[in-house]
């Protein structure tokens, strides 16, 4: 019977108070024209000033220990804050990856020196991270990476290239997955290691790749004989694969997997509330049911993370369902244009809708494709 459960976690009054506090802050920012709510804001909308402001509020690095400049709050508190930021389309892209996964990775595997020098800066919104996993010839097949780190007298020499590294041009560091030894016959995941690479080092070359909407967030990052100090190694040499797997649970289970385009849904409803009541209640009801279920699953995973569990499979469930939900949502709104033609929608709503339509194919690619998610689940069901 049931292999993967999502125990129901109730939001406490304390969490609800935090939620309202964040909401009030965001409303003030919007009223002061500090930002305009955007779709997919955790990928596209980088605003280092806003990140710093969140840091000073204590809303970044929330669960990190105080000794490293963190706030020692729970994963559930962090969940509530990130939900509020995403639902309002706040510009969180600059710090998103550092706060979501890289900081935890450094805390878990880093040396004392690494932790002391990096974690306080992440918590104050002054240090941003990019993901260094994919390469031109290694996408879903991550174990095939060719970027290579070789031991030298003083540290490591890094040679290779990483691609699709969102926001790298604004970032201070990238956690690079590189080969430090050969794979074994039995296990191709052997011989991989993670490195904490300062992107301001000589011979690091970051080149933008415009995406299909013309925006820049993608990059190709070239490491042309980059000299790394000894302590650039993150964690244990040769344990890169298991380290990466843990990181992916953080990457895949969060509310950005289903709230990326929430601002669109919210605006749409505000605009057409009365029309929807007459002829579209069921469409909205279905979206509410899907969304609320996803929120519960994701919140439940936050509680598993809090308890020190490793819910990688549950994360794959959330990512897969969340991606599907967002596609269904955009499609449902499109069908409504039978009743009110798209060209009669207010300009801002039209733009949000068209942005969402154009960007939606990427949501089931980034962070692991649908096919990879289904593969992970099938393995856990004993089929592979």
């Amino acid at each position, binding site marked *: 019977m*049931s292999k993967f459960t999502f125990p129901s976690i109730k939001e406490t009054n304390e969490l609800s108070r935090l939620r309202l506090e964040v909401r009030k802050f965001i409303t003030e920012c919007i009223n002061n024209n500090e930002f305009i709510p955007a779709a997919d804001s955790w990928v596209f909308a980088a605003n280092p000033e806003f990140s710093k402001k969140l840091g000073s509020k204590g809303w970044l690095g929330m669960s990190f220990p105080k000794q490293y400049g963190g706030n020692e709050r729970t994963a559930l508190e962090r969940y509530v804050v990130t939900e509020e930021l995403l639902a309002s389309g706040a510009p969180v892209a600059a710090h998103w990856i550092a706060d979501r996964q890289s900081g935890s990775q450094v805390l878990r595997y880093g040396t004392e020196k690494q932790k002391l020098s990096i974690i306080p800066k992440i918590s104050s919104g002054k240090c941003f991270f990019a993901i260094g996993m994919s390469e031109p010839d290694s996408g879903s097949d991550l174990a095939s990476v060719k970027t290579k780190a070789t031991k030298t007298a003083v540290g490591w020499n890094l040679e290779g290239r990483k691609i699709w590294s969102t926001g790298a041009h604004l970032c201070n560091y990238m956690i690079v997955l590189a080969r430090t030894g050969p794979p074994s016959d039995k296990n191709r995941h052997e011989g991989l290691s993670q490195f904490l690479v300062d992107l301001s080092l000589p011979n690091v070359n970051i080149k933008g790749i415009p995406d299909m909407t013309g925006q820049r967030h993608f990059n190709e990052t070239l490491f042309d004989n980059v000299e790394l100090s000894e302590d650039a190694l993150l964690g244990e040499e040769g344990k890169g694969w298991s380290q990466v797997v843990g990181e992916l649970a953080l990457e895949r289970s969060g509310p950005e997997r289903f709230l990326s385009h929430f601002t669109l849904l919210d605006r749409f409803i505000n605009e057409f509330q009365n029309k*929807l*009541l007459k002829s579209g209640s069921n469409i909205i009801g279905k979206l509410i049911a899907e969304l609320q279920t996803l*929120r519960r699953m994701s919140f439940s995973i936050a509680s598993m993370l809090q308890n020190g569990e490793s819910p990688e499979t549950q994360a794959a469930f959330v990512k897969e369902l969340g991606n599907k939900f967002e596609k269904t949502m955009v499609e449902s709104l499109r069908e409504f244009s039978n009743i009110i033609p798209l060209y009669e929608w207010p300009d801002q709503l039209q733009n949000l809708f068209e942005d969402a339509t154009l960007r939606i194919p990427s949501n089931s690619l980034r962070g692991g494709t649908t096919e990879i998610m289904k593969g992970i*689940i099938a393995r856990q069901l004993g089929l592979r």
Partner: protein
Amino acid sequence: MSEELAIILETASKIFNKHVNHDLRQFIDKANINLINLWNDIEEQGLSKIIVKEKFNGSELPFSFILPIIKMSNYYGTPLPFSETILSNYLLSESDIKPPNGMVTFAVDGIDIKITNNKISGKLLSVPFLNLTEKIILITEIENVKNIILLKSIKGELKPKKNFLAEPRFDLQIKNCEIIDIKPLNSKFNFNHLGALMRSAQMIGSMEKALDLSIDYCSQRKQFGRTLSKFQAIQHQISEMAVELSASSAALSAVGNTDEANKNIQDIAILKIRAGIAAGKIIAISHQVHGAIGFTQEYELAYFTRNLNSWRNDFGNENFWETFLGKNFLENNNQNLWEYLTY
């Protein structure tokens, strides 16, 4: 999970394991000795009155306990009105009527219901399991008050329904049937909501079974020199079943701590929608990966998918609850969507 609940589930699984097999489900049109033995064990262990008040010989355990038990009984595919009895006995007990022994089933609303001299006449529609029991509760409105009526014995004409060839159901014309007791239904209940909750828990148990059967079958069946489970097309289909099931289970665990109609109505709506969507997909995929064998009577998959077809239409289908939920939000002008979701 509490230790107490774990012990009860352990007891229940022993009973189901001992008695329930696919043969038992073939003789569903009348009570045979095996069905009677199963029921006697259920009753002896107090499972049918698990949330009934102690003064009526029940265990008076928390309401939330019945959901995993109901789920389990349907994972095993128990061909008895087990869930119906648990719910009926509970509502009787909470409305201060002593629940009878034996299996109990329920009827809702009815047509042309008339009560004179403590005798009732009218038509009851689609009543489950009248082949196995004559004990019925009727929930119906009389002079603007919801009443719960325990009928003494059926005197009337039974008309079998098709019901997707799932559990037996009957339309029943009753005439001057004796009433054992009639009371106003405790106002904290809405039978439609509790029914939707119960059917959803049943569906989730059945979907778990359909998933497990599919995994087992595909891990054994070989074609083109390898087991079906090694084909990526099959793996992805089965993963999709697991994803749908996990969403439904998450929706179920969000409900169930309260039986009060108004407190958890949104959660029940979400659950029935989510389970109904999942059932549609799981019926289709489980049959697809089984091939022709799943389409036979001798193999057990179809028992579960026929029940899913029936239950996803009971107590409001997806569209009913989607419309309900959509209106519930849209008619309320004080909250935007995010406030509604996070309230």
